[in-house]
Structure formats: structure tokens, C-alpha cells
């Protein structure tokens, strides 16, 4: 699979990263080199092999069904949550206008 600059721009758009034409041109070569190299995985016979989902077998734990069970990850920490926001306003995250 070879990717062209139009594909590079498509990926960049999916990844929400603005790129210039020069960056797209440079990235075309880099991504093709890396993808060409990883394609050797296609040689491996994986018939009947399950994809790995957990590297160390572990059962999924569920949190107690209690509101604000953990003082750190529960609620009531609005100021802490907003403390590093670039544009917090009125207790919310501020963003550019979304609805015309």
C-alpha cells in the first residue's frame, strides 16, 4: 500500500492536525517508509490466533456504584478540573462559537 499526499492530508484531517504542503510532501516519504517496513507482518501465518487484548490476564474490575465514591476522581472538584483550561468561563470550558 502506497500513500500519496492526498492520503496524507486525509489522515492529518482525521487526526485534527493542520499541515502545510511542504509537511505533507515530507511526511509522504516518511509514512511510506514506515508502512512499507511494517507490511512484513503480512508474512506471518496467524490462522486461528486470537488478537491480544490484555497482555497480563486480568479481570475487569467495576467500581462501586456510588456517586463520588473516590474523593479524587469523584465529583465536586470543578475548580481543580478547570484550573488548567486555556479559556474557562463561568465554571465551564470556553470554546469558539460552534452554532451559527
Amino acid at each position, binding site marked *: 500500500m502506497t500513500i500519496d499526499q492526498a492520503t496524507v492530508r486525509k489522515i492529518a484531517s482525521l487526526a485534527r492536525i493542520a499541515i502545510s504542503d511542504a509537511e505533507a510532501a515530507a511526511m509522504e516519504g*516518511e509514512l511510506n517508509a514506515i508502512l512499507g517496513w511494517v507490511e512484513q507482518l503480512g508474512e506471518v501465518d496467524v490462522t486461528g490466533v486470537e488478537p491480544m487484548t490484555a497482555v*497480563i490476564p486480568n479481570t475487569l474490575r467495576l467500581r462501586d456504584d456510588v456517586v463520588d465514591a473516590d474523593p479524587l476522581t469523584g465529583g465536586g472538584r470543578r475548580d481543580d478540573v478547570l484550573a488548567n483550561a486555556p479559556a474557562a468561563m463561568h465554571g465551564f470550558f470556553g470554546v*469558539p462559537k460552534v452554532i451559527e
Partner: protein
Amino acid sequence: MTELTNLTVAQIRDGHRAGDFSAVEVAEAFSANVAGAKALNAFIVETPELALAAAKAADADRAAGTLKALSGVPIGMKDLFATNGVQTTAASHMLEGFVPRYESTVSQKLWDAGAGMLGKLNLDQFAMGSSNETSYFGNVLSPWKRNDGGNAALAPGGSSGGSSSAIAARLCPAATGTDTGGSIRQPAAFTGISGIKPTYGRCSRWGIVAFASSLDQAGPMARTVQDCAIMLENMAGFDPKDATSLNLPVPDWEAALSSDLKGKTVGIPKEYRLEGIDPDIDAMWDAGIAMLKDAGAAVVEISLPHTKYALPAYYIIAPAEASSNLARYDGVRYGLRDLPDGAGLQDMYAATRADGFGPEVKRRIMIGTYVLSAGFYDAYYTQAQKVRTLIARDFEAAFGACDVILAPTAPSAAFGLGEKMADPLAMYLNDVFAVPASLAGLPAMSVPAALNREGLPLGLQIIGKAFDEQGVLNAGLAIEERAGFTARAEKWW
């Protein structure tokens, strides 16, 4: 008296306990070394006041008879761990100025054990890199130089290169690292120190800036195997806040340290004998085999047939997870925001991410986005996950015949800054021996074993069974005792 900054963690702990020196003296000595080593660029933020505060508390605890496991020991903290009230950047522009209002579980455990923080250590941006050349805050330099008189600046390894450089240069006795595909072991090898990546899930990932969640694991870096054991005991443990945290007791690794390997079998993976590899690496490996035999172990050849596919699988899985994890940096909740004139929300995301991420981070996000995109998911991602299963099975089968595996940590000694930056693939290949154990979630450690003909350190890697950190540490100790590695970089910084 020996210079305090030459002491190991164990010596500082014991000396402080015995009243040979105060914790304040120790903290001040290390802080002075940190302040005098700007040329290495190992720290992004220095916090001598925090080291001093912990030291005063340690001295008070000694007076009160309430000493803790790490009382009197100041350490460096990789700037990937969220530290309450102290800037945490992951060496990125994206998080420049980010001051967490919470503490990572691993760092909290260390502070609870009485350790103090000398500062936040530089790293490859978002832990992506093997040379510390992708940090937004500039390259970290290794304290080591080649003995060819050329004076070339060398890489301290990556991504935990600030940690490795700082320990090798005696700016701290120990530091935290994180290892996704070798980021503790390779920098340890490059700088002549030790480092262990425990079994996946031993250390909580809560509060560590995420790179590839199924691989990321915190671990200690220090100058001795014993120090690694002490540090790891105080970093590991169950954490309900991390769903992948192992609910197992933390063994007393330090107390059980033993370099007597009688009855143990060491496996030598034949696939790691790479053609055209530096003869110094092979010679060190052979010497390591002799050392473990001398310690009483039997040695057998083993086969890890899918070794060749570990790196390509890693460079699908890790970027895929990174592209997902790094989606959180969107200019809304924390970190950088770039809002061009008249920009809408989508433009703000794209501008922020273009400006906030460095080239290597963008490259990996792009690869990850591509391999996860519709039409390619099965061909790349599912295939890589299946190959990962086969790699883990290789290790399982091998551990039917041996207790630990011995291999080089990296295929070369430290390379020069700039030597590999132009070719991402050449850089990725430096992790060829480190990545398989990461994919399988196994504990693995690097111990300094020799100097090459250029006078640079080389590391041996020990890979163990899941949960068998003790076996890894013990084999590491056997090598440490026999290699007698005492070389250190001559001070030029």
C-alpha cells in the same frame, strides 16, 4: 567521608538512619550538583525547595523514631508523572505550563515513603524517542564521551534520558522512568546504570501521561540492582484507580536478593544473534553468559521465533494507542490553545495540535490514525495484535525451558546526537532487543556489563517470567557482582 552524591540509595538510607549525615546535607549536596549541571539539560524544572522540605521532614522523623523506607533519599521524577503543583509537560509544548492539581499514584507512593523531589526530568516528547532529541525543551546530553578525543555529544538514550543522564552524572541517586518499548532499559544501558521495567500492571499508570496504554509501565532507574529493588518496592502496588493494576502483594524484593543462581536455568535466544552486530556487543553477551554460569546457573539455547516481527508489530500497536490517547490534547480542557483569527472549533483543534506536537509525535499520531482507519484496521492493527499473541506465546514456550533470558539491552552503545534523527526507521531499530519483552508485558532489566572499545558503557538485559521480578533482580545482581562495573563519566559539564 565519601562525597554524599556518590552514595547509593541504600547507603543514603542506611547512613541517614545511623546518623552519619543529615537528610538536609544530602538534599543540599544533590541540589548543588543539579544546579551545576545545566549543560546536560537533564531537568526541565528544578525543585530544590521540595527536596529540602522532604529532607527536613526526614530529619525530624529520625529524631522522632518514625523513619520511612526512603527517608532522607532525594530522587528525580521523570516529567511524565503528574506532580501536584509542579509543572508537568511530557517534554512537550502542548503541556508547557500545565500544573496538575493531582499527584500520580507512583510519585505519591514515593513521597509517602519519605523520598524528596529534586526536580522534573527531561525526556523524549510524550516518551516518543530513543535518544532524547524530541524534547521541546532541548536535547539531553549524556555525561559520557567517546575516548577518541572527538568530544562528540552523545545521546543518553530515550525516552527516560533525563533520568539516565542525571543518575550517571550524580545529580540524583535514583529516578523514575517509564518503559513502553525500552525507555527504561536502553537509556540505562547507554549511561552505565541499572533500570528495571516490572511486569505490566505492577506499577499504577494513574497520573502518568499516557503514550501506549497496553505497554506503558513505570519503573526505577538507579546505579545498583539493590537500589532498583528498593525503589521498585516503593513504586509498585495495587491501585483501584488503574483498571490494569495488578491486585497482588508487593514482595520484599530487596530482602530476597541473592546472586546464587544454583538450580536456575538461563535461556539464550538464538534469534537475538543479529548478523553484522557490533562485535563488542556479542563479546559482552558471551561474558555475561560466563558470569551467570559462574553464579551457578545452567545455560540453554532457546528460540523466540517471532522476534523479527516484534518491532513492526510495536510500531503499529504503540502509534495506534498513541493516536487515541493523544486525542485529549485539543486545546479545550488543558494545555496549549491556538485560536487563529476567526477560527472555528475544528480549526482550533488542528492549529493547536499542529503547534503543540513535535515532528516525531505527529508522525506517530499519523501512523496510528492511518492503521486504525476504516479499511486498514484489520490489515494492520488486528494483524499486529495477533502477532503480539504469537510473541507472547514464544516467551511462554521458552520459559518452559528456562527461568530467565539473557540478551543485550541494545544493539549498540550510545550514538551521537543527530546521527539517527534523519532516519526514523534507523532510530526505531535501536529498540530491537527491548521491544519483545514489552509486547509480552514481562519484567526486564538492564545492568551495566562492560565498556566498548570507545570507552562507552554497554548493558545486559535480563527478561523474566511475568511477576518474577525477583528472578530478574537476582540474575542482575549476579552480573553486577561479576562485571565489577565501576567506570563513570569524567566530569566536563
